[in-house]
């Protein structure tokens, strides 16, 4: 499927009351799904998910795909940038303690396994680690802010 066809499908979904459209062609699957906030894309093997903006209804976390931060995001303008997304609803902390230095800042080069931030929900702490080496281009969420499931947290550039 060529980009023009995909663009048309995205427009179609955006204008409609449909939240998700799945198209199979030549063994390639394209899913277009509405999401609040930024336009974003995640591609997984033999399957591409394109997010459209302006949801008709809130995205149900259980129905959303497994976050695949390691996958390349083929956005037209900055196709080398990848988004690291939140695995759960919670509060994001950029440092291990209120008076401590943040784990990472924009421009940092991080190694695989390095902690990027903590997400807390119900006093359950989840250290978000880098799944591959990258450079942090943009931090999208401030310290202490609540985050939704699958919300983009960092824009990163693969090393």
């Amino acid at each position, binding site marked *: 499927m060529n980009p023009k066809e995909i663009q048309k499908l995205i427009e179609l979904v955006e204008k409609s009351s449909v939240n998700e459209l799945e198209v199979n062609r030549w063994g390639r699957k394209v899913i277009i799904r509405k999401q609040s906030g930024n336009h974003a894309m995640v591609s997984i093997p033999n399957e591409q998910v394109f997010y459209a903006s302006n949801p008709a209804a809130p995205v149900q976390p259980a129905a959303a795909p*497994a976050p695949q931060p390691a996958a390349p995001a083929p956005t037209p303008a900055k196709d080398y940038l990848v988004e690291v997304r939140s695995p759960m609803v919670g509060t994001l902390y950029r440092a291990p303690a209120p008076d401590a230095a943040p784990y990472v800042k924009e421009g940092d080069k991080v190694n695989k396994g390095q902690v990027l931030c903590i997400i807390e929900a119900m006093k*359950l702490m*989840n250290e978000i680690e880098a799944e591959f080496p990258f450079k942090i281009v943009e931090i999208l969420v401030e310290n202490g802010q609540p985050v939704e499931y699958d919300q983009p947290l960092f824009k990163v550039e693969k090393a």
Partner: protein
Amino acid sequence: MKQFDLVTDEKIKSQLNTKLIGQEIYAFWKIGSTNTFARQRALHDAPEGTVVIAEEQTQGRGRMTRQWESQFGKGLWFSVILRPQDVSPKAGLYTFLAGVSVAEAVEQLCGLRPELKWPNDLLLNGKKFCGILSEADFQNGHIRHVILGIGINVDHKQEDLPNSISESATSIRIESNWRLDRVKLLITVLKRMEKNYELIQTKGFDPILKTWKSYCPRLSKQIKVRQEHTIYEGIFQDLDEHGCMLLKTNDGQMRKIVAGDFA
């Protein structure tokens, strides 16, 4: 009088008849943090249900690197490894399993009905005697493991509590005037946890959240919650499907609280 009735893995194993939880036990005299050790074991494929317990923690932790006092022989400081086949957004709900199981065990053994304070502190007569701090790791959008870290003040006398927390903290001994056998308490908690974990696997989280709410007298009441620098006031309406607090603020709006302290 016997000063210390040590919690050993032999004692636990001889009384524990669970199928899953506590089948593997690491019991220490002293450790930095049972959660840290349990997480390391979990990352090295320790089986589900593994329990790590210590008589003393030198680096017992609370939220945001706050310290958790865990003196030798006074309480139960332990962590349980679970590996639920569940998606990552559900991880936070497993902490309710810990809170409910401790509340049920204490009520069964002492006849005192603890209060659960959102999300999962346990109080007796308004003072905290049990804290729960959990950690999770995920893989491809699914839970790899959840570490439930539980600290219960059991045998402290009033003078054993550090001055800094003596106003807000307590122990089962102080509130019940009774020296509860720690091994018995641990075993009761682990049995309850196994039963509740099975319930989650067969019926989902609804029954656990319902039990949780039955231990929460602040539900439907006017409360204050501090989230970072803001204090919200309103009625504690309900829990949502992630266990977040739904607060109906005084201006009529419904606000979702994902993490915070009662003000």
